């Protein structure tokens, strides 16, 4: 079984790269990009299995990016990273194609579980 390909999208470089490194330690093929454009490029060139997408980045709308990713690669599972969440916004994000969401900062175990669950969902 090949490694699960995870793409991290966050403007906080330190956060994204450190998290990618931790995921690599845990056996994921994780890559970090720091803006939406690079993320979309990546989705086009080598579609990842799971995308961890920060909802709030300067100069772009996270939900727009989510929709674009789902359009480019419908099988791609997107987990939204957000400062705050609610049942209502979760339902809206799900309608836009998000697989799940995680509240920043969250424990690595929680994230890993969410990534695995999303990947299983993709494989079904």
């Amino acid at each position, binding site marked *: 079984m090949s490694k699960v390909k995870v793409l991290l999208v966050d403007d906080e470089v330190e956060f994204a790269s450190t998290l990618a490194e931790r995921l690599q330690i845990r056996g994921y093929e994780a890559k970090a990009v720091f803006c939406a454009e690079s993320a979309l490029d990546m989705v086009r060139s080598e579609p990842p299995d799971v995308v961890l997408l920060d909802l709030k980045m300067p100069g772009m709308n996270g939900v727009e990016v989510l929709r674009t990713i789902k359009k480019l690669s419908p099988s791609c599972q997107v987990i939204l990273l957000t400062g705050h969440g609610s049942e209502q916004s979760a339902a809206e994000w799900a309608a836009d194609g998000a697989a799940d969401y995680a509240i920043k900062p969250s*424990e690595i175990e929680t994230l890993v579980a969410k990534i695995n669950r999303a990947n299983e969902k993709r494989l079904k």
Partner: protein
Amino acid sequence: MQKEERHTGLVQKFIARYRNLILSDASSVSATPLSKDRYKSLKIRIFLVIGTLAGVPLVMITILSYLSLQGAFKEDFNNQMRGNIESTRQSVEFFIDERISALRFLAAANTYAQLSDERVLQDLFIKFKREFGEVVDLGVINSDGIQASYAGPYSLQGKDYSNQDWFHEVVIRGVYVSDVFMGYRKIPHFAIAVKKEVPERGTFWILRATIDMATLNRYVSIANLKSRDDAFIINHQGILQTQSRYHGNVLEKIAIEAPRPSEEVILSEVRQNGSTPLILGYTSIKKSPWILGMTVASTAQSKLLDLLTRDMVSAYLAVFLVFLGIIANIKFSSALVNWIREAELEREEAIAQSQHSGKLASIGRLGAGVAHEINNPLAIINEKAGLMKDILLMSTDAHINKEKFIGLIQAISDSVTRCKAITQRLLGFARRMDVRHEEIDLNDTIREVIEFLDKEILYRNISLETRLKEDLPRIISDKGQLQQVFLNIINNAIDAVEDGGQIMVSTELRNHDRIRVSIKDNGQGIAKEKIKNIFEPFYTTKEKGKGTGLGLSITYGIVDRLGGSIQVESEVSVGTTFHVELPVRAEAQ
């Protein structure tokens, strides 16, 4: 929405009037000594206005009714005097007529021959005296003017009257009443003479009686006179015919200007030298050479005043009512001013309340932003610490990863510093409004504020230039509050400019004791007619929901409390400059 704007406009206008009060004393709701004076002068003004409104008509009505009463009273007074004179004249005329008729009767009933007989005449004289009294003598004069017979105290038999005026007069007129003269026993008398024609012989004779003036005096003094009034009879030459109380003795020239003969009753005012004016009434007495005169010492006006002052009850009542009116006015003015004061206090409380809630709202908005900003460094800390844990769990030899660990720990420390800076700013904003004096470097304060806004400036590509004059004296002021002031003004500048706009913050020393901070932007500017409103509470030019309209009013209040001042220069579509001047040493206000 339009309605709401209009409502806001009204509130602003209302508040504009009291802006000084509000802004000079925004945090305190108790009245200052200055405003106490203001209420006192307001009370006095209301008292005066009400007093004038009530008093002027009252005084006018009083004057008008006094004048009309005076007119009526004067007429009444004059009529009374006229009537008095008229009735006295009638009495006197009746008296004279009666005696003339009696003499005529005697002359008609007797012949010359009969009356020439002393004894017959003496008999008639006694009877006449019994009927009419006060007759001094009775005499018959023939057509040559010679006394033919005489009954009385003198011996006038044979006296020749042919050259005397009265004789000529009685011959022409048929009847004659003489002036008063001093006669028997030095008592004033007057004479009445009637002519008896004897047509069959073509001749005539005259019957003459002398009458004591005391009789007439009684009639004159019957005129119901008060102590300072006078009544008298004078002849056409102004010689008193009766005794006068004030104007001279009998047969003397009258002391006042002599009245002229007149058929009618004439009333006039005469002035004696130096004394009070007199009302003089006079009229001629028919069939006599006399004029009846009457003087009343008091004029109609003085009589009216006498009457009014005599009525002390009404006077007391009037004074009492005026007093009552003044008391009511004072009470009403006080109550009115108290209502105004209460309303103002309520309004001040409401303003303080809304300023407070406005502040809370800003804190809420700021808080949300801050929380979001804190989240990112927290996430970094989380991952760095997690990675360290991962490495420690997987490796048995920590030394291999020393460099890596130091890097991770440094990143954690940096993130903590980031969080700390954010929380410090938040605490600075949330600090209470009390003025705290500390020594601060204004340039540093401004730099810190700008740091806080760095991110937005960066995102919107705004160029923020600072020209901070170095070596400024440190000032004694409240750092937290000054930060709030500059944060507010610079925030407004950021809101005012387009993306990519320019803002310049500069400091300079003025007059050695004041520092001027200027915040200049090249935004849309403020229209001239709006500049005067910008420091008013609830005034905002920002979009609905973007501003509370309290920022600049709070700013103004803070600067004022710190002993500073704010000026604004602005030109539409050129830009706006705010100048904040602060004293180097803030006077506690």
